[in-house]
């Protein structure tokens, strides 16, 4: 049977393999979890992946102080508890936290503005890693700069830990609108657009041709209800991150299942109506307008 076996040396950590895992997550919901029990509830509710972190963004907001990578023991406990991919957060620029997460074997690293940034000028050189990275972005230029650094997946940032969807909408509209605008430009106009977006011309060309990012685009930051999730999908998201919205609500398992169902059937208002019934209390939330400048997380990273 030797004629049926592999004919070349297998290669790990390629762009295709890194971006490919994000492709498998499309149409799904990734949930923040702080322990193995929450991770099991998330998986049982249909999460496509979980984000392991010590405190959900709403608590990071409430507690203040420096937010860092989670304890490896806690991340490993979650990796042992579920079969879906496990993501974990490193601080912006903190490539050693990312090295640690890769050594632990997490499936995706989120270089996240939810944690306190570790470098005010440089993001992590993500090409140097085998583990793939997801990064947040508030607009198209920011998304393209992260992709040029090696990000294999982008999420609109939103304003984490608020339960207020307005910033996620703003960022998704900025990214999707930026893409639609690029796609209408004459080829010679793309150079000035690259300068305006502060992004490499080759990525600008690629986006203009594809009419989309070259990587999967999720949404995050403030999604709290099934209708929020479906709203973001109709605005152009390929999938949804829900942070505090599930485990800060009255009935997490029920809300988690409802958000998963609404993400799959995002274009079917009858389904969204059905799953939205009697969900118990949503997270209380904080109006983004009421946040002081220093409390805003989306401004971290550039």
């Amino acid at each position, binding site marked *: 049977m030797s004629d049926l076996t592999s*004919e070349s040396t297998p290669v790990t950590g390629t762009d295709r393999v890194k971006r490919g*895992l994000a492709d498998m997550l499309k149409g*799904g919901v990734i949930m923040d979890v702080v322990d193995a029990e929450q991770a099991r509830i998330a998986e049982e509710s249909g999460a496509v992946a979980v984000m392991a972190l010590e405190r959900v963004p709403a608590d990071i907001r409430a507690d203040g102080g420096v937010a860092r990578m989670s304890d490896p023991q806690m991340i490993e406990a979650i990796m042992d508890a579920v*079969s879906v991919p496990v993501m974990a957060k490193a601080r912006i620029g903190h490539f050693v936290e990312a090295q640690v997460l890769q050594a632990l*074997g997490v499936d*995706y690293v989120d270089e996240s503005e939810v944690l306190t940034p570790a470098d005010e000028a440089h993001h992590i050189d993500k090409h140097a890693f085998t583990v*793939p990275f997801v990064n947040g972005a508030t607009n198209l230029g920011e998304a393209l700069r992260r992709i040029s650094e090696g990000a294999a997946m982008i999420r609109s940032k939103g304003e984490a830990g608020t339960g207020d969807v307005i910033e996620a909408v703003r960022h998704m509209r900025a990214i999707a609108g930026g893409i639609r605008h690029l796609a209408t430009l004459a080829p010679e106009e793309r150079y000035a657009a690259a300068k305006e977006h502060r992004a490499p011309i080759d990525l600008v060309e690629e986006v203009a041709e594809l009419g989309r990012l070259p990587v999967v685009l999720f949404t995050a930051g403030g999604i709290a209800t099934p209708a929020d999730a479906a709203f973001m999908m109709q605005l152009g998201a390929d*999938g949804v991150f829900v942070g505090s919205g599930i485990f800060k609500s009255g009935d997490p398992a029920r809300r988690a299942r409802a958000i998963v169902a609404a993400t799959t059937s995002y*274009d079917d208002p009858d389904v969204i109506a059905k799953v939205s019934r009697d969900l118990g209390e949503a997270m209380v939330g904080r109006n983004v307008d009421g946040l002081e400048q220093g409390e805003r997380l989306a401004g971290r990273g550039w």
Partner: protein
Amino acid sequence: MTTPRTRVPGEALLDDRGPHAAQRPTEGPRIGVLALQGDVLEHLRLLAEAGAAGRTVRSVADLEALDGLVLPGGESTTIGKLLDLQGLTAPLRDRIADGLPVLGTCAGAILLAREALTHDGRPSPQPLLGGMDTVVRRNAFGRQVASFETDLAVEGVDGTMHAVFIRAPWIEEVGPGVEVLARVDTPLGARVVVARQGPLLASAFHPELAGEAGLHRLFAATVRERSRL
């Protein structure tokens, strides 16, 4: 905005723009892609290349008038739960028992198996469709950092295929009615990664991520043959 906006996740953000836009030809066998979660778009593109009329399947009504079905890559636990939620599990099992041709890649190969094992060989408690006399070990090659791409020969497909394995399973056991179409070398020896049983075809890797249409052509040929019966 009273009409909901519909878009296959991953599709271009403009109508009819870019090579990623899903193409839905009306000619050829009608092959659905289960579109609950996962890399649906990539399969629609390869079906078009294989001369089939692809369409998305999310409800029981979508199952009618199908000549074949693709179960895409994604998370097998999530897709299994969504199948239950949509009331698709029993109708799909019936169609498979009636001889509906199905191609499953990665998560799809797991859903087609008789039994799923965890990466370390324990029974994996998750809903499956079944249909193939196979036992599949999930994440058999390791976690994402071990995901890889390689070239391999697949029986029934000309030349070699570029195969992308993402947290991939392998097929641990095959029953007597199952044909092995490809194996891959591992430190533990060669492991089965493509298998066929009648009209059911399972691949542990993702031909759709490399734009490799070979398996889809093979599958479309099976579908054409069956729909002529």
